[in-house]
């Protein structure tokens, strides 16, 4: 069976759905961050697949920008989680109530 654009897009959708499930259901904030990374990677696969099959290089440029944003997001996200951990001694997302009233 010849691999085409649809296969890469379906792989991307599966990875995105798994990441979405993890990000919505997990309680450990670090695992939520990992699942968000999975979702960003899934989008990157779709971008690169379009770039290859449509012979348009802009898709890969977009993927590079997504990587930049993902790196910045992980740095700030982990800093936030560790700051909250120092304050509350837990990384359980259901116990983060600093902004509730």
């Amino acid at each position, binding site marked *: 069976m010849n*691999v085409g654009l649809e296969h890469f897009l*379906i792989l991307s959708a*599966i990875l995105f759905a*798994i990441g979405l499930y993890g990000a*919505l*259901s997990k309680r450990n904030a670090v695992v939520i961050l990992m699942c968000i990374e999975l979702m960003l990677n899934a989008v990157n696969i779709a971008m*690169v697949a379009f770039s*290859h099959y449509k012979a348009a290089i802009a898709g890969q440029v977009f993927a*590079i920008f997504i990587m930049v944003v*993902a790196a910045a997001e992980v740095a700030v996200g982990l800093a936030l989680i560790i700051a909250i951990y120092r304050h509350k001694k837990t990384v359980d997302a259901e116990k983060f109530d600093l902004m509730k009233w």
Partner: protein
Amino acid sequence: MGLDVAFWILAAICVAAAIAVVFVRDIFRVALFMILCFFAIAGIYVTLRADFLAGAQVLIYVGAIGVLIIFGIMLTRDSKRGSPSGRLRPAAMLVALLFLGTMIAVIVGTNWGVASEPSVGPTTSEIATSIFGQDGFVLAFEIAGALMLAAVIGAIVLMRDK
């Protein structure tokens, strides 16, 4: 033909590792499975002839983000708790399955109009021309640099002992 086989193997590794990320209990192993998944995605970029992005994927995701996440896990130890699911688990499963079904229906049902000649050559110089050349993405590139600077300063400010 060889690339097709490589795609199926890499896709299987990728999906299996991603499923392990959401279902394995030991959080350190979760991080290792995530790194495996990123590595398989780098292989998938190779099957798409995106050589520069495959290298960048290994450097940034497998190298930098993987190490950063493992550091994060070690600095926020409650490993006895593992990675339990919250109250939202059934709803999250429902949303994810609905999303997956919709996406697959749309992907299969759309005529994508693939270019007759998929690109094959090395991509690094093409990417450079696209970013820095005439009518390129120079402004977005500069903004990405500013974003990185802001993220680094923000992370330092958040982590500093008061």
